[in-house]
């Protein structure tokens, strides 16, 4: 599903990625680890097409609409409510039974009670849950998750663990994380990026 050889990315003078090879088949679960600044986020941005590699080959055999991306930023408008944000993305991704699916996801991530509140009033952890709802809303084939467990409390971690387990059979995962322990059981491969 994703194949990369000798991937390189440079921002101005600084080279962030050099000589990265990657192979992620359908149904795989690849964990990307490495210290801060090793280029984990850049690698994920390359895989979802938000950045172009400076050198090397990259093939991603998934249409844009079938990718679920969780970034450092929640990618939601603070002035809109949780419902409005998810409704916006639901329409853009043409999600069938949009209202029901939004309700189901908000329920599963315990955000249903806050559904009419502005995202701006959410705590960092609630924003992360809202971002997870946004990323899972259209049931993507490929999940690209950048540090999914950050800012989640114990309940959040447990909820996310359950969601990942449940979607494990139907999807392919590319997850960047600091403590691979949490997803070790699910992982089929891992890639360590040097500093």
């Amino acid at each position: 599903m994703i194949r990369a050889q000798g991937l390189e990315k440079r921002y101005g003078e600084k080279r962030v990625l050099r000589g990265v090879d990657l192979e992620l088949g359908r149904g795989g679960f690849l964990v990307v680890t490495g210290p801060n600044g090793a280029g984990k986020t850049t690698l994920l941005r390359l895989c979802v097409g938000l950045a172009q590699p400076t050198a090397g080959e990259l093939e991603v055999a998934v249409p844009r609409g079938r990718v679920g991306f969780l970034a450092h930023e929640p990618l939601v408008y603070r002035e809109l409510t949780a419902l409005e944000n998810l409704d916006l993305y639901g329409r853009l991704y043409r999600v069938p039974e949009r209202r029901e699916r939004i309700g189901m996801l908000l329920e599963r991530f315990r955000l249903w009670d806050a559904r009419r509140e502005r995202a701006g009033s959410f705590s960092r952890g609630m924003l992360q849950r809202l971002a997870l709802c946004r990323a899972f809303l259209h049931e993507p084939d490929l999940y690209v998750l950048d540090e999914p467990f950050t800012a989640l409390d114990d309940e959040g971690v447990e909820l996310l663990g359950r969601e990942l387990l449940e979607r494990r059979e139907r999807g392919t995962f590319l997850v960047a994380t600091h403590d691979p322990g949490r997803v070790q059981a699910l992982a089929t491969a891992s890639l360590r990026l040097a500093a």
Partner: protein
Amino acid sequence: MSYLADVATLARKDLRLELRARDTLPAMLLFVVSTLVVFHFTLPRDASRLAAFGLLWVALVFTALLGLTRCFAAEREQDVMDGLVLAPSDRSAIWLGKAISMLAFLVAAETVALPAFALFFDPGIDGRTIAGVALADLGICAVGTLLAGMAAASRARELLLPLLFLPLAIPIVIGGVGASVAGGSRYVEFLALYDAIFAIICWASFEYVVTE
């Protein structure tokens, strides 16, 4: 059809954001009226119609510029641009959605500005002026939105947008002032030509403004 649905979704989102935040439209309204009042004092008693309409267009262009600097502010400050760029819809829908919402703000500001202008300067606004303003708005919103997208990707945003926008606005101002002052329909036709050419270029090239 789904392309227009995406554009509608994005435009509605912008209008709802504006209703909530209320930071662009009120500013534009106040700005255009206060500019016209200030201009009143800069105009000598026996000034010609050309001078009066010239001031109207200066006020309109800079009001539009004020709105355009706020155009991609939400996406940039809250880092939402990646979310829109990743959506399966064509990237030009982002541009069209923004342009339509910017047009709405500009027209709203003009529904206050034109009567105020007629009141303060009494130059006799005729149909051609309205047509000129309408066509100019299309050009301003089409080109301005794309340039706002460019400025959003750069460091010196508020400084850069006027520099990028004003040279491209010169033909619009010429067409606008000409439509209201000189006879004949050449200016209105010219504005339509400008809108057609630049709308197509913007529509085709916006993809490269928001991606690498």
